[in-house]
């Protein structure tokens, strides 16, 4: 009885915990934060100028202005640079 209820308790707690999952963006968030605080600046370059979610080459040629604008904004965000368009 003791062992049975013990096994049941273990399963219960595991099932409760397994209802939650780590966030999907955890890895990207970690690596970005680690790169930002890393003394090794070469690592940060890995994240710059490398769009992670979009393929710019697939944009139609007529969208070049929008593509350029998006690219500049993302690069400025990733590199913590401020781009001011006047």
């Amino acid at each position, binding site marked *: 009885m003791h062992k049975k*209820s013990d096994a049941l308790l273990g*399963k*219960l707690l595991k099932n409760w915990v397994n209802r939650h999952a*780590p*966030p999907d963006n*955890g*890895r990207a968030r*970690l690596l970005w934060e*680690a790169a930002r605080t*890393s003394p090794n600046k070469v690592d940060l370059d890995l994240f710059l100028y490398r769009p992670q979610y979009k393929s710019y080459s697939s944009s139609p040629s007529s969208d070049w202005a929008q593509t350029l604008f998006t690219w500049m904004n993302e690069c400025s965000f990733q590199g913590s640079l401020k781009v001011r368009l006047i």
Partner: protein
Amino acid sequence: MSQGAAVVEAKSDSQLIFSLQAGSLDALGILYDRHRGLVFRTAIAITGDSEAAADLLQDVFLRLHRFAGHVDPLRPLEPWLYRMTTNLSYTWVKRRQRWLRPLEDVADWLAGARKDTPAYQAEMDDSWRQVQQAVLALPLSHRGVVVLYYVNDLSLQEISEILDIPVGTVKSRLHYGRQALKQRLGLLAGEIMPELQIEFT
């Protein structure tokens, strides 16, 4: 998976720690993928808060990155991760108790009437919430031992080394924690909530 990626994934923790000490972020990413479950499980079981667990997951691996030079690559990494996760989770719980408990008491008092509503009753009837409440009602020191033992399947000796307490203390905390949980969850009388029974089949 490419051959190169397979070689990287096959690297041992020890090799990855050496790489991390040399500044490799790829090594950090692989270690994260390999051990994030362990850290997240432990953090959420101690804090009972998924957002806090996600933040603690980040914090543990950022500390691994920052203090990689102090980690011995020739020793297993898991105990270091367990120790860091439990310590940070304890800190989070204590801080929350200190700052938020008084605010929560006021909020409960203000929302007193809400407890009569069907929505609130339905929320409280949620069986998983009962499990969470039973775990969170344990004293923090008992909770840590119970989580490491039942959720992570660690031995008494391993828990003793991770928490830096004698094995006898681990046994004692586990005994009281186990009894309190079983009592709250109705396991002593051989009962179990119907919703939870489904999960075992």
